[in-house]
């Protein structure tokens, strides 16, 4: 019992002193630290990871190319399945498709670049008109009148086997530059 010392305070209980005491304290701290690290890292990843995941934006078939008449904009339904954690839901959006003389198609986001209202096509005046604050765009999407700060936003689109595929995106309204949300 040479390395033990009689501690006076607890009714004469032994307690290791010196390097032995330091060693036990040190091992205890290392064990606690390892367990702590083994938990903190996975648990942090566990909580953070879904928060940082970007929503996948898939190509969606919005209809046949033949459905879009040359020269006239056509509103097409864009239906996607949205994965919200473990829930699945359908999201329905409408996009504007304009067939170009060369057969390609330009697809506009359905939201006015001013404050995000839905605009419509005026077939007689051949202009897109936003009912909220009177922004007007031509068939190319360029601003003709009103407070809209930039042309209509283009959505990525492609044609495969005669079908029109579109990726839906949202953009920040009210800015000169195009900022994807």
């Amino acid at each position, binding site marked *: 019992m040479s390395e033990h010392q009689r501690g006076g305070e607890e009714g*004469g*209980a032994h307690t290791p002193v010196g390097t032995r005491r330091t060693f036990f304290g040190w*091992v*205890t701290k290392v064990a606690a630290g390892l367990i702590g690290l083994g938990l903190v890292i*996975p648990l942090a990843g566990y909580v953070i990871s879904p928060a940082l995941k970007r929503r996948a934006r898939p190509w969606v078939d919005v209809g046949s190319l033949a459905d879009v008449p040359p020269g006239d904009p056509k509103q097409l339904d864009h239906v996607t399945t949205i994965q919200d954690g473990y829930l699945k839901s359908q999201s329905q959006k409408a996009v504007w498709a304009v067939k170009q003389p060369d057969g390609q198609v330009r697809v506009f986001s359905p939201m006015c670049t001013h404050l995000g209202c839905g605009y419509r096509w005026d077939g007689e005046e051949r202009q897109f008109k936003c009912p909220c604050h009177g922004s007007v765009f031509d068939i190319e999407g360029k601003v003709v009148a009103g407070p809209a700060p930039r042309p209509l936003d283009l959505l990525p689109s492609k044609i495969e086997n005669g079908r029109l595929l579109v990726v839906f995106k949202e953009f920040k309204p009210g800015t000169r530059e195009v900022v994807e949300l």
Partner: protein
Amino acid sequence: MRIYQWLDSRLNLKPVERTLLDEPIPGGASWIYVFGSATLFLFLLQAVTGMFLAVYYAPTPDHAYDSIQFIEEQVTFGAFVRGLHHWGASAMVVAIGLHMLQAFLYGAYKPPREMMWMVGVVLFLIVMAFAFTGYLLPWDQTAYWATQIGLNMVGTVPVVGEFLMRVMRGGEVLGALTLSRFFAVHVLFLPALLIGLIAAHLFILRRVGPAGPWTDERASLGSETFYPRQVYMDAVVMLVVFAVISSLALLVPFPLTDKADPSDTSFVPVPEWYFLFYYELLKYVHGPLEPLATWVLPMLVVLGMLFWPFIDRNPVRNPIKRPAALAAGAVFLVVVFSLLGISLKNLYAVPRVDPAIAKGRALFYQFGCVGCHRIHGEGGAIGPDLSFVGDKRPDREWHLKHFKDPQSVSPGSFMPKFPLTDPQLNELTSYMLSLKKTP
């Protein structure tokens, strides 16, 4: 250290520190005393992992299964956290078993420590209640049918059984109300109860002190302070326990079975291993004797454990001088472990399915084979029916060649070539060969 001094000068922490760390351990620190701390550590681990599982879990029948699948497959470290909780539960049962065994062998339940033992038995029962309620939460087939059986057993208790079963189930059938009340009990009621009783268990420990060695000579060596040597032993054991559970969580996946289907009565659930001995016992008792096994015997065992300090009135703690008590304990352990052994043997005697077959089956659906080929009524009718293809074409080489290039062995076939890797080729072939009239 500075912060500690700052706090100490205001809160007078030194006496608290002394009370916590200088607790005298009769006969000195020992590796045999670590099981209580290990159990407490495992409880804390269960509490922490449980809280994190609750971040994504949804306790309703239409979302519970999907939310756990989401944790398993989509959340970073999700399978690890769920694995820790799953294996932690098993480890907790082991730790409690060893802790009780140590207390029993050392006669630590004898006066003045009867209350500590009794609170301990209640803690053990609460942990079993945790296991039972937690098992239902994933809402898969195993969960659903195991709980169904557990509830039916409660129903066999005379007079009050039917009523009790309905209250536990929350209604006529096992469903949404059952799941939400099991969830509430598992994550709110039981933890509150358990924390309270752990506090009582530790309070009694500090009031009466640890039992220490059973012989007076060893005890007369004098006592040693709890810190640093016993704390060091406890910490090392906790680290080892954590390493084992983490390894199991990482290496042994614990997949869900199919989503709970109340209409599929063909599913045979197997309980967790710590309930297996009891599951085996129930197989031997039928007819009018059944209630004996479903509730009379368990109740007697629980009451016997609870009041053990008053049944065994021999004041001697040395196990050598307590043959009757030790024999009783040994008989109990032999019965439990024999039943567990028989049950495990029976379970593993069931012909195991080659994992390649299950993988091949998954590939069959993944590559859309089912679109053209029919197996037992399911699938398209464009290609040949494959229900018994293992009888028709038992040659492995033929299948391997055929999947690589269908036209090479079956001229004129319009089956497309699929981009299969070599392991996939083998798995799909194993699945084809398993499709026989007699397995």
